[in-house]
């Protein structure tokens, strides 16, 4: 097909902005036309209408700048923002327009750095080079490299960790990170920094954590940088389901030299343990319930494990809309129980796959739902999720509480589908 009716996957430029938006105090100057940045600003509100990302500035290129180059505007903007707003860090981010003119914010940042108080970070990608995961990974790694202070002695007292990977747009991040914090507290572990919601001062001291927990693949390069620079080990993976959460907590505890289980952890697991078969309204005609999962890798893998391993449901199809940054994704999904795995399928292939798998339940994005109108039950677990708000912090899919919330979401959506029929 020469055209698409679906949202394109967000490009690297947006991933960069979303990663930076999670850090209060960063001032972002987008190098391009004002319309790009207006859209970015509106987009922040679409992602989470309850949050206040920092202001985003634009160099507002016009026709003559396109011809003659707009570096002077970028330099003026940097000096102005530095003088008037006194931020600790200014990010110079190429939009597609500036990138196409060959603008080099790295060179400009090097040139201007001696003249300004703020640390300057440049991102030249521009949005036609890769997908948002690449931009987010690069931005988090750049922050780890350029802003996090060097090695320091970990403070005495309770062990501390950073949660690396969630960014401003990560689906359900408020709830999932709250649940992860709650679980870690059961082990006596304190969270220092969450990359989707932190500030420059806290981020600067992130090197003092005992362990970095990478909840999403885009955080891997940053964790590797911190391991090299600060000697902080990292652990990659997210806690989903009863068994998955137990394993995850054990691994965290082992790395921190703690007891993997405790009466509090066991009590918490028992409190939220949910067997889907006992709450399910599914009364099929002898055929098994078929489920499709379409989400970014870490979420897709976690949910597949819950559905297939914890609840013994049939995951007929797992779809990754964006190729993961971590290797071995397809094998991991199949190992977790997905019968079929598609990675970055084109629109037509995805629509055909949904039709072929004929799931009763689709856990995916709003665009996945548009492609699968025949599926009776839809649960939102990924962006774009313009038909479903997800800003509350009490509806996790991760952890013990996530197991129960997922069960309740499935049950309610199945009841709603029955009423619609």
């Amino acid at each position: 097909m020469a055209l698409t009716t679906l949202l394109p996957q967000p490009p690297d430029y947006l991933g960069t902005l979303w990663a930076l938006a999670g850090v209060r105090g960063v001032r972002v100057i987008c190098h391009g036309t004002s319309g790009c940045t207006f859209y970015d600003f509106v987009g922040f509100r679409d992602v989470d209408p309850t949050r206040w990302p920092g202001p985003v500035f634009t160099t507002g290129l016009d026709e003559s700048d396109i011809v003659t180059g707009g570096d002077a505007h970028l330099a003026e903007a940097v000096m102005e923002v530095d003088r008037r707003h006194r931020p600790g860090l200014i990010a110079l981010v190429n939009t597609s327009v500036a990138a196409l003119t060959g603008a080099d914010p790295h060179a400009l940042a090097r040139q201007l750095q001696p003249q300004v108080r703020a640390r300057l970070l440049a991102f030249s990608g521009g949005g036609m080079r890769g997908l948002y995961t690449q931009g987010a990974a690069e931005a988090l790694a750049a922050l780890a490299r350029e802003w996090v202070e060097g090695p320091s002695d970990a403070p005495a007292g309770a062990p501390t960790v950073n949660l690396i990977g969630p960014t401003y747009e990560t689906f359900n991040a408020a709830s999932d990170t709250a649940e992860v914090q709650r679980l870690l507290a059961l082990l006596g572990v304190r969270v220092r920094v969450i990359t989707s919601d932190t500030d420059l001062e806290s981020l600067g001291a992130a090197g003092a954590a005992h362990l970095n927990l990478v909840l999403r693949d885009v955080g891997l390069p940053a964790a590797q940088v911190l391991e090299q620079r600060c000697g902080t080990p990292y652990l990659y993976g997210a806690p989903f389901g009863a068994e998955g959460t137990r394993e995850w907590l054990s691994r965290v505890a082992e790395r921190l030299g703690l007891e993997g289980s405790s009466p509090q952890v066991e009590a918490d697991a028992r409190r939220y343990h949910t067997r889907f078969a006992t709450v399910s309204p599914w009364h099929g005609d002898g055929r098994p319930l078929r489920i499709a999962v379409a989400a970014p890798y870490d979420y897709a893998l976690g949910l597949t494990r819950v559905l297939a391993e914890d609840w013994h449901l049939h995951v007929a199809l797992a779809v990754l809309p964006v190729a993961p940054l971590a290797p071995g994704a397809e094998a991991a999904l199949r190992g977790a129980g997905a019968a079929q795995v598609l990675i970055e399928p084109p629109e037509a292939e995805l629509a055909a796959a949904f039709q072929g798998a004929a799931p009763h339940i689709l856990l995916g994005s709003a665009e996945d739902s548009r492609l699968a109108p025949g599926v009776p039950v839809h649960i939102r677990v990924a962006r774009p999720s313009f038909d479903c708000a997800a800003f509350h912090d009490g509806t996790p899919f991760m952890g013990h509480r996530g197991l129960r919330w997922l069960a309740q979401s499935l049950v309610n959506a199945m009841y709603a589908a029955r009423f619609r029929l």
Partner: protein
Amino acid sequence: MDPVLLPRLSAVQAAEQAPVVGCVESPGAHCGLFEAALTGPLFADACTLLIGAPACLYHARMTLLPRTLGPAGLKDNLLLVPMDQADTVFGVEDRLVEAVLEADRRFRPRMLFLVGTCIPEMVGADLEAVVHMAQAQVQARLLPVRTDGFSGKHQLLGHRRLLAALARAMEPRPVRPRSVNILGLRGNAGVESELVRLLRRWGAEVLCVVPAETAFAQVQQAPAAALNLLAGEMGLDLAQEMERRFGTPYLHVGQPLHPEQVAQTYAAVAAALGLAPGAELEALAAEAGEAMQAARRAAEGLRCAVGTFMGGALGAARFLVDLGLEPAIIFLNRLTLQDRTAREALLARGIDPLVAQSRSSLDTAAVLAALRPQVYAGHGDPSAMARLGIAHIHPDPARALWGFEATRWAAAMVEHAACQPPLARKGARAWP
């Protein structure tokens, strides 16, 4: 910027003379794509093919999609051709021809807007050539639209160019007496506006309301109109093109708010079309007057700031003055046709507020924090106003209203704003 440095309205003849608040734009003006992507879905049997960088198309579609939900949602008719790096080197025209053929085959639109953005403009993508190559092979009328952001900011060019493209779907028609088109009344509700209802009651034939659920058949009929009524300046290029090609005159009616202006404009329209207005006008004017009185009782004495508003910022300021509000500052990013007369009317009454252009929401917020108005009427960031404790009247809900219904809406909004307990009101003090 310190408000004390700002000039007053009497010292400013054109928007460009107003000083810019904030040197670095934040977040910046929206671009033509933003306008075109939200206007294309207002055409009933059209599709809108957007061509550009993935970020632009992602944002355009993402902005539309929530607006397609619910019982009164917009039509989802956006089709996308995201460009990659190879397209910028080797050209995108062949892909576009293919996309046009596919759009025609899959969706069978009667009109297909081809909306180019910054990146295709920069690499010299030739939309006219695409039309030339593909038009004979498709049913849809192909309508190319340029919406690059580097030349179109803040000037309604996305709207204007998209509507102007409609002229390519028109052919000369015999003129029907007492028939009109209404140009620039934006929103599907425009076809049910008071203006349309009254014109029909008075015996006029309303052929085409643009853009308001407009169908290809109506666009084709448009050249048969005896008169175009230009309600919004987004229709100006189309009105001028229709005058040039078909000899259709246009009358600028704007979107007046004050009852007297509304009555005068109705009279002018009736005279131009040879219609006899009915007695219902008096009743509607009386209702609007009552709404004005109620708003005045609630809001008299409040200080306000005014930004871009239906009909223009100065027209809105004049309306608010009539309700007893005191404009502390007007953000004058554009001067509309209506604004010119409103400026004289304000100055004649001794109303001479501060004026500025707003480029940065951060700096605008700082100015508002210094001036502490209780009400802000105009486009702007609702959450920023909420943080400042300023009651915000956003004009978007009324963009398809015309006539005394618009007066009643605006008066009701002012009354509602005055009844809110904004934080600014608690410590309100006049400035300077």
